[in-house]
């Protein structure tokens, strides 16, 4: 349903709430992307497929978000939208559309996703997570 940024002196912290785990993860990517590129709109020129694993939801979310940092640094790919996302047990499959990062001007370098206070929980049908990004 939504994500919001919380106060953190040195880093960036955000909280996401959603009714499904897929949407929760997808919104977490939106929060990560907003941190990186602000409100710049990214065109849908290319597509990337990837899979990550994690032994619990925290690790799965960590590895999922980290993949976007990898795509940005190693392949100069900036995500625009999650096209499909499938989470089954310890496995996550994602198709994401976006564009070459070199076509845009933006400045916030997210160094890493961290386990700092990270949690993914479900209560009464609502999924909640919090993440701190090292910037």
């Amino acid at each position: 349903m939504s994500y919001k940024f919380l106060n953190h002196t040195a880093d960036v912290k955000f909280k996401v709430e959603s009714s499904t785990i897929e949407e929760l993860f997808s919104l977490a990517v939106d929060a990560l992307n907003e941190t990186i590129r602000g409100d710049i709109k990214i065109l849908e020129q290319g597509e990337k497929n990837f899979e990550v694993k994690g032994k619990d939801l925290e690790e799965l979310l960590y590895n999922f978000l980290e993949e976007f940092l990898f795509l940005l640094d190693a392949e100069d790919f900036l995500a625009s939208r999650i096209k499909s996302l499938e989470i089954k047990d310890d496995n996550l499959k994602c198709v994401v559309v976006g564009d070459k990062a070199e076509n845009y001007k933006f400045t916030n370098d997210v160094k890493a996703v961290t386990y700092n206070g990270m949690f993914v929980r479900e209560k009464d049908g609502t999924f909640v997570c919090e993440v701190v990004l090292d910037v």
Partner: protein
Amino acid sequence: MYKEMLRKISETEYELPKVGKMNVPGRLFLSEELLKDVEENSLKQVANVAMLPGILKCSIGLSDMHLGYGFPIGGVAAFDVETGIISPGGVGYDINCSVRLLKTNLKIGDLKGREREIAHSLFRAVPSGVGRGGKLSLNNKELGEVLIKGAQWAVEKGYGGKEDCLHIEENGKMKNANPSSVSQRAKSRGMPQLGSLGAGNHFLDILTVDEIFDEGVAKVFGLKKGQVVIMIHCGSRGLGHQVASDYIKLMEEEYGYPDFDRELVNAPIKSELGQKYLSAMACAANFAFANKQLITHWIRENMKHYFPNFKAEVVYDICHNIAKFEKHVIDGKEKEVLVMRKGATRSFGPGREEISEDYRGVGQPVLIPGSMGTASYVLCGTKKAEEISFGSTAHGAGRVKSRTQAHKDMTFDEAKKDMEQRGVFVEFGGKKGLVEESPFSYKNIEEVVRVSHEAGIGKRVAKLKPVLVVIG
């Protein structure tokens, strides 16, 4: 509650008494003014570090301390080599995030009227921004050489001269750097980024020497009033970040994490994994050294368009986020220990063999960049620092305000106007950075430096005033 427990030792020092599971007390280099802004949680981090096995003497918080990952930023601790641990949280994600100072043959008057033009051209000459590649295209084998040789690799390839390396910690090449300890994922992130500044709080500043506090030492460092100097602040980019992430995971799998703080995941120094991390860390540190050497070269080339006789010599290049084996006196006896400095600068006094020969008589240069638009400082290491802070002092102004809060308090236009009023030309990659890095988000650098000076762990040598700033 930690703040209430603090015991004031002097106007610049506090002790956090040893309680609960702490193995040693905490020692904080703070004034009353600085203490006001210190978060309770960063004091808790000082206490958590004190609980780690093998920690020696005390867990240190420096005058710029604030909340970090695992260790506080501005946190230092030394560990017994036999019984101690190494923690990626004691080094940080941006391994060898560091600062280099160049002294030029220009005077402040030479820049007059050309500031904007020069800022603009430097911005183009030095690649910056997020994810952006440098100007090089390396394969895995070449990157491996960078990771082994650091700045010396860049010099071999014609980027600068051998003399540059004499004024870098470790001569720009950390030993025991084995590229096989760095994952392919980390290498892939680093490969396109060598020779780029990065973004966020990384910058390139042109400053002038505004005030000299110690003529004798300034002379040894080659600094004169009115001289133009250049400061480069950057680190190991995605490669270092990935090394940190990789080893946090590996250590957690192998050893679990301390029940008092997941972020302080660690491995024994003597363990295979501990040794492998130290080797990967050395590789990342070398990447950062090479990075600054390349950037230095491009600055030299670029400035020659404006000043054909332009010269820029390296004053010093220091590490902010690093772990090093060093000799320190413990219980009256000298022994080798592992010192982790997280957002902290080595501050060795005169005579240490680690310091370049020509500076050895006075002590190591300590470079403390201010926030964007405020003064930066050159200090000099001391014997007292070796006695009380494992030869360490502060590394910068230290954040006090979150980025979210910065945007609430200030618009881009206000931040820009503030820079204009300070007389600083800024060339920036995006509007967000200018607001988030505004001096209002940081501690007062003058106070951070005063406390270091008064506590005797880093003596003032010169104050540098910014003229133009290039931020990624």
